[in-house]
């Protein structure tokens, strides 16, 4: 939530920020998108909030898959082999 916002604007901004995630995910109805974009143009607090939220999401989206340690893979296949032999009995 933007930190420094006047009391009057607070309520309005709060309603806007709740929709930011959906906006980022392109899940927001067109009409609301437009409303939000207009608000962002005029409200620097929300703009900063939106910018940092977007960066956060971008960072997490760019995290790569963890690679499987070789030993872990070995043990996985050993376990599968065991399950298979049990299943055949």
């Amino acid at each position: 939530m933007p930190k420094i916002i006047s009391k009057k604007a607070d309520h309005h901004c709060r309603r806007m920020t709740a929709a930011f995630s959906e906006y980022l995910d392109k899940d927001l109805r067109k009409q609301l998108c437009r409303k939000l974009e207009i608000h962002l143009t005029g409200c620097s607090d929300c703009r900063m909030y939106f910018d940092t939220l977007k960066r956060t999401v971008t960072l997490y989206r760019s995290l790569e898959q963890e690679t499987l340690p070789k030993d872990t893979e070995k043990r996985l296949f050993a376990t599968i082999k065991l399950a298979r032999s049990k299943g055949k009995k």
Partner: protein
Amino acid sequence: MKQQIDQDILLQQARDGNSRSFNQLVKLHQSRVYSVALRLLGSQSEAEDVLQETFIALYQNLHHFRGGSKLATYLFRLATNFSLMKLRRSKRRGSDSSPLSLNVIEELPDKAASPLESLLSSEFRAVLDQQLQKLPAKDRAVVVLRDIEGLDGWQVAKILGLTLPAMKSKLHRSREFLRKNLSGYLKDS
């Protein structure tokens, strides 16, 4: 598309008892499954347990499982549920109802480089994972599945047994939490 067809063939062969085909399916998905479990559990040994449980479950349910296109989703669901079950059992990280505490990052790595530039640094990746671990389990699962693994919103909701609005609300709350905790990195870059 071709990969999908190959996977369907592998699945059918695995059902017919071809162990080599089953192993190939495992190889295709093992990193993804391990990755999700590791991010949810924050422990390599526990992630390894979940990895094994997931593929044993797949092996045992091969004949019940239909629809090759959803194998990845199916495995995500197994891995997520096994991980959440583990977390519930150990309760090490507090319950879902615990309020989000807005922690300040304890150790700040070099901020000279902008986050995106230092993206590849393992140090910064560790910070992202560290912050993720501070979220309640289900909120963390939402971020892992939606933002890191890139699943559709409705898929995430289904896997976690949430309604779509509930999932979206959790997602926003979690992103906000992470944003706040990472704010030191996000400015001036």
